């Protein structure tokens, strides 16, 4: 945070955001403050991606000159790219945030992994179950997340203050009406909220804002030569020796980048020449593919995201 602030104070003129980004920024800051004012024990989910980066930056602005009055929580599946973990620790230090890391060690001990268990079982154990464990362990009543409605059809149906019943379950047919900016944060025992300040942002908004505000991002979003194997048409970057090579597979160096980051064996890269933010934004404006096309866990079956969310997935 300190470095960012100094840089901005040095600037003689204030950067002018386009009107639609200013409106989105103000809305997100208002949501973050509302959580801080009404939650008993809130936490901000930090998944290291571009949305998390924007969320953390907005939190730094919302509570300046104080620090965000909640910790960051990273649910570590142990299968993130090494670059992501390095970035996570660097950014937490930069913003002076308290970082909690939680892993489902019980599932890890059972040998759950994306390689041997498949994407569905791995996601359930290492993401959904791990998240619920972490929220229960610390007694968090509100979890702030960076999910956007433009990511996926069932996300488009979600409230900004999304009510979760016992065991973190989501019932899309019984969502609270959510009017104006009058968010209802009432909770009974065992109930919790997931709060999404970036609900109304699009992928392009996130990148334009990241560029305008100089927010640090993981280098994996930029094109570079990386070791790639092709599986069922998806470009999988082999981040370490844990990804077994199938017969006939030899990783080859290709110029690729990521639009969406998750567990590395489940995140497909795209071929790209975009080596910086300007190029990423240019590429995005003409792209004919959606951001989550590389997310293998979404493609499990129709409505799979909705089912994951009903069970407590973010």
């Amino acid at each position, binding site marked *: 945070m300190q470095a*960012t*602030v100094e840089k*901005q*104070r040095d600037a003689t003129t*204030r950067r002018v955001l*386009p*009107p*639609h980004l*200013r*409106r989105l*920024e*103000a809305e997100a*800051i*208002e949501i973050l*403050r*509302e959580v*801080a*004012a009404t939650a008993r024990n809130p936490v901000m989910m930090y998944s290291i991606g571009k949305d998390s980066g924007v969320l953390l930056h907005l939190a730094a*602005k*919302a*509570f*300046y*000159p*104080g620090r965000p009055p909640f910790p960051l929580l990273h649910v570590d599946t142990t299968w993130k790219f090494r670059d992501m973990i390095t970035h996570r620790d660097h950014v937490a230090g930069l913003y002076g945030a308290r970082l909690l890391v939680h892993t489902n060690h019980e599932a890890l001990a059972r040998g759950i992994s994306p390689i041997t268990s498949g994407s569905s079982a791995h996601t359930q154990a290492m993401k959904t179950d791990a998240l619920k464990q972490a929220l229960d362990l610390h007694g968090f009543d509100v979890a702030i997340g960076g999910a956007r*409605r*433009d990511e*996926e*059809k*069932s*996300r*488009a*149906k979600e409230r900004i203050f999304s009510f979760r019943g016992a065991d973190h379950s989501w019932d*899309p*047919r019984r*969502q*609270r*009406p*959510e*009017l*104006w*900016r*009058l968010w*209802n944060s*009432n*909770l*009974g025992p065992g109930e919790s909220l997931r709060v999404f300040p970036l*609900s*109304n942002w*699009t992928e*392009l908004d996130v990148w334009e804002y990241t560029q305008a505000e100089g927010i640090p991002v993981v280098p994996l979003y930029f094109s570079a030569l990386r070791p790639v194997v092709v599986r069922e048409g998806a470009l999988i970057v082999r981040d370490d020796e844990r990804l077994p090579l199938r017969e006939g597979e030899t990783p080859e160096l290709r110029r690729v980048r990521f639009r969406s980051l998750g567990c590395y064996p489940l995140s497909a890269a795209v071929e790209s020449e975009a080596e910086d933010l300007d190029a990423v934004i240019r590429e*995005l*404006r003409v*792209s*004919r*593919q959606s951001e989550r*096309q590389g997310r293998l866990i979404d493609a499990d079956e*129709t*409505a799979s995201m*909705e*089912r994951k969310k009903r069970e407590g997935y973010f």
Partner: protein
Amino acid sequence: MDGAVTAFTGRTHRPNRDLLRFLTCGSVDDGKSTLIGRLLFETGQVPEDQLATLERDSRRFGTDGANLDYALLLDGLEAEREQGITIDVAYRYMSTPRRSFIIADTPGHEQYTRNMATGASTCDAAVVLVDAAKGITAQTARHSRIVALFGIRHVILAVNKIDLVADDPSVFEAIRAAYADLVADLGFRSVLAIPVSARRGDNLTAPSAATPWYDGPSLIQALEDLPVADTGIARPFRMSVQYVNRPDAHFRGYAGTIASGEVRVGDALAVCPGGRTATLARILSGDVEVTQAQAGDAVTLELAESVDVARGDVLALADDRPAASDRLNVRLLWMGDQPFDPARRHQVKLGARTLPARLTLANGAATLAANEVADGLLSLPSAVAADAFRDDPAQGAFVLIDRGTGVTVAAGVITDVPDHTAHIHQSPVAVSRQAHELLNGHQGGVVWLTGLSGAGKSTVAQALQQSLHGRGCRTVLLDGDNLRHGLNRDLGFSDADRAENVRRTGEAARLFAEAGVIAICALISPRQADRDAVRARFDGGRFVEVFVDASLESCRARDPKGLYARASAGTIPGFTGIAAPYEAPSAPDLTLATEQLSPSLAAETVRGLLEERGWL
């Protein structure tokens, strides 16, 4: 049309485009989801991988034969795809070279009207769909009323499925005219009717050859031309304090989003209600210090002087403040599954304030069913700073929350802030207090007995009444428990209800005192502020506050009504002394230690005081 309409295909982008939020609404099956899906498709906003999914889903769930079913781009819930209806609002994002759009695709089904209202509350404009073959329905009217209630002033009437009526201009014209009549008194600034076919794509992004008789804009052009919502900059400055930022002893900032107007460093600000003033010392916009900020900015304000400001207070310019009232005239949409029940406890969320509220429906109505719109009066435990919704949409809207379930059960707007005492003039009295007192042979006044349950208030009150009666005095005994069976039977034990209980009893006692009667009031009345408020209604010396003092232990040991036992067992929540505080009088006129005094001796002590004061 001149062909320029093709320019918005693709994701061309200009950094300075603005943002328009609109919703689509109307009856079930009039094609809302299809319209938006088609709009997204035609403006090139549907990525190829989603198109592939759409083709797959259309074969499986589609309702348009072999053709793509564009509604499936939107209906994201399993139950929606299975039933072919929209259950909850979906938000979609679209941009053209001129504008970014946030589209709320809302359900048409009556059962899900509250989800439609959810979408409407944040939008600048509405696209109301009508099925050309069916014409205007009850839902068309209902949705239009809700849209107007929530402040939307621009409506586009999309007469859909024009292909089903053979593109007949007379059908279109009849619907347009009928709709104009329907909404004539809803206060819309613009209503533009467009004949469309969502399935065929007619007049969505380009003029259709099928409707040569229509020479207006396509839907997308009309949406690009609509004015975005009033930014509120021209109105007076208002900011509801959302969060008090106090990271250390050196900084105290008031964070919030400016609802309307502008503010500059050096401005004199009033903290409303209450009206303390202070000078604006610094404005932080995020982590940057600025000298001026305006409506829509999320800022943190630092004041030069140290005044008490809490979340929910409204900051305004000292010379242009909002009204303050504990009563608000409102119009609201009931959204609860259960009808409105005056016996249930509700709280209102108004700006950053959340406080208990009592709703009284206008015209004597006792209940309100889901999806009904009604007028009413909101009574609050204390005055709040408030503006009417038409003057300040950001601060004039509210939601009602059921305190038992935590669910949002109504949404509404402040229609006006009544200065409810300004227009009520007191009737002249035919017989004056002095005339009454002359006849009675003593003064009128109030003896207010306060203390814990079981302290002996009622016992002392009865002894006092007997003693005074024996002296030939006219008395009345207002016992808290007895009043709760009649005058105050609608009140519970929330802080607000307890305050109202004390206020009403005090007002009843005042009427007796005016008639020259000595009113003896016996009620716990746990808050000093409430008792002080009653005292303030009397001119000097006619209100005597008597503290009936017994320790909690001895009250609990006496427990004449068995209430302490039940409170400890948890069957009486919020019982004073157990789960709710009792504030002993800070400066009572008299303290009666009932652990030492007998009831008759206590009564004589009070009578002695009244003689001393010249009442008797």
